[in-house]
């Protein structure tokens, strides 16, 4: 490889990793929103995956192909516990209890010092998440969502998003679909967290808070949730933008916030108002 290309990759490696990981996070958000729910816990699930993965690698030295599925499994389990009681209630309960989840986990990371390193976090995580692995997983996730979206399940999900009551009357098992979507999204966020931890070498307890959750939401809302590709493009734009336009860095959160406001008020179907085509 040419030396300048090598330097180029070195310079932008974190950014390239970041875009892929954020793409997975955006898909995890998409998965919940596709059934008409709102989770503010994607950052918490991501953190759970990051800590699970980092601990299994650092303390037990397990191989990465074991670590990665494990870091999807733990958030899935927590999603089951959270979703069970709250998904029967109206949507705001899930939103608020997932915010609560983030806080509870933060307190746990801080207090179980011997395991999690407390406020100092975990450092020295080996860099096992290669660019090709991240993007391969992103591609697989995209294809899966595309396939689901085109199937009868995708139709049921869209129906729930539009009118939960009517969807239930159509014979769609609404609670099961909601729970399933939350679990799948938690798994994806967990995988993204594990990949992030294994590409940045250091994780801390304060990285998976409210702001991260809102940022993930803004990925999905910028792109819109008409097709699975849209939120990934949203993540691409919002991740690359502050790097390309460095002076904007101060206003990064302002921009993320404004995107959410504008998207909801004026572009309820996202900036890319696409809709997945089913062959009918």
């Amino acid at each position, binding site marked *: 490889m040419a030396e300048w290309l090598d*330097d180029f990759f070195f*310079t932008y490696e*974190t950014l390239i990793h970041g875009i892929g990981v954020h793409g997975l996070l955006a898909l995890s958000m998409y998965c919940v929103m596709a059934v008409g729910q709102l989770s503010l816990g994607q950052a918490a699930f991501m953190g759970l995956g990051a800590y699970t993965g980092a601990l299994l690698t650092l303390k037990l030295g397990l191989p990465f192909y074991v670590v990665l599925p494990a870091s999807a499994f733990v958030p899935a389990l927590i999603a089951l516990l959270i979703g069970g009681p709250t998904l029967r209630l109206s949507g705001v309960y899930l939103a608020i209890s997932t915010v609560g989840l983030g806080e509870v986990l933060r307190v746990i990371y801080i207090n179980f010092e011997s395991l999690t390193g*407390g*406020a*100092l*976090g975990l450092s020295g995580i080996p860099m096992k998440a290669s660019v090709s692995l991240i993007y391969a997983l992103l591609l697989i996730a995209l294809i899966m969502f595309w396939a689901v979206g085109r199937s009868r399940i995708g139709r049921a999900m869209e129906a729930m998003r539009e009118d939960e009551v009517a969807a239930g009357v159509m014979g769609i098992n609404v609670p099961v679909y909601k729970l399933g979507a939350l679990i799948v999204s938690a798994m994806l966020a967990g995988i993204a967290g594990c990949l992030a931890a294994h590409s940045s070498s250091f994780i*801390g307890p304060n990285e998976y808070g409210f702001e991260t959750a809102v940022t993930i939401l803004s990925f999905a809302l910028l792109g819109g949730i008409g097709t699975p590709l849209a939120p990934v493009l949203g993540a691409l734009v919002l991740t690359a933008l502050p790097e390309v336009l460095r002076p904007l860095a*101060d206003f990064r959160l302002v921009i993320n916030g404004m995107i959410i406001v504008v998207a909801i008020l004026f572009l309820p179907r996202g900036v890319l108002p696409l809709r997945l085509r089913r062959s009918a």
Partner: protein
Amino acid sequence: MYRSLRAAALALGIASAATVPALAQDTVTVGAVEILSGPASGYGIAIKSGLEMAMDEINAAGGVLGGKNLALIVEDSAGNKDQAVNAARKLIGRDKVPLIIGPTLSNEMFAVGPVSNGRKIVTIGTSTTAAGITAMGDYIFRTALPEADVIPVTFKTAKEKLGVKTIAMMYANDDAFAKSGFDSMKAAAEELGFEIATIETFGSKDSDFSAQLTKIKSLNVDAIAVSALVEPVAGILLQARQLGLPETVRFIGGNGSNSPRLGEIAGEAANGLLVGSPWFIAKKDELNQKFVTDFQARYNKAPDQFAAQAYDTMKIVAEAIDRAGSAESDKIREALLATDHTGVMGPFKFTEGRDPASAEGVVVLTMQGGKFEIFE
């Protein structure tokens, strides 16, 4: 996948080539990653000021390597570890600097360290006081005195001059900086044989400390050691006096308390607080007096310890480059290990572990009427 990445790389590469600053051959460029925007930008801006002032003095005195100018590229990390890594990668990959000063926070250093060390680029923290920084690799240095060196001096002074025997400890347990300071405090307290009556924690964004302080009040301690950033420390001091904790109970602060903001927020309630500092504005030696006057004239404000540490660091780096005889990272690293410099902070050498060798320059300060003075 790979092919498309390469295509993207080509496209971006062309776009970015134009932004690389054209540097003349007779210049040695070093990089810095500091917080220039966002909530913690105060630290980064002070460091940048100190670095630039030292650089201008060096260039005015003939530069480095027999007449080459020293240049500095400062990148913003905004206090975010990912942005810090991106900034360091840009400095290494695009600007090809042999040495990076910074980043500002220990957390950022933990993320940047493995990257720059992996590329064998010397990285020098001027404000990163947490434990374990230099253990990340052979190319990671720091000129900031770690808390572990400063705290024992403060504690020893409290023991010898105030007769402190029993202490309570408080720290913000969600903050890496505060936690690492607390670890040093605990070690120093055990070393000096203090009796630790209780250890209380709080969140760095908390504003109510009444439960912890009421408990401490009932334990009749001689002193309370607090490790946190300045805001919660100020809140603790105010509430302690409100709860009627007697003035004879001294507070002992860590590096976070070493800020003039403490007096501004807590006022009289901060009276009597002890803190150790690697540098103090009123230090009488000639070098320091000149630094303070020049800084005041140039930036129209008083320097703080971050500016002072940065100023010394730039001088140390310039001397190392001269000794190395070339601006190559490996040679600079060797030369740095042989540093023997006297700066505004006092005499300076590196240990074999690339930390500052002595805590001789540490002064113990106390707060009176909202201002720090040297504790006698």
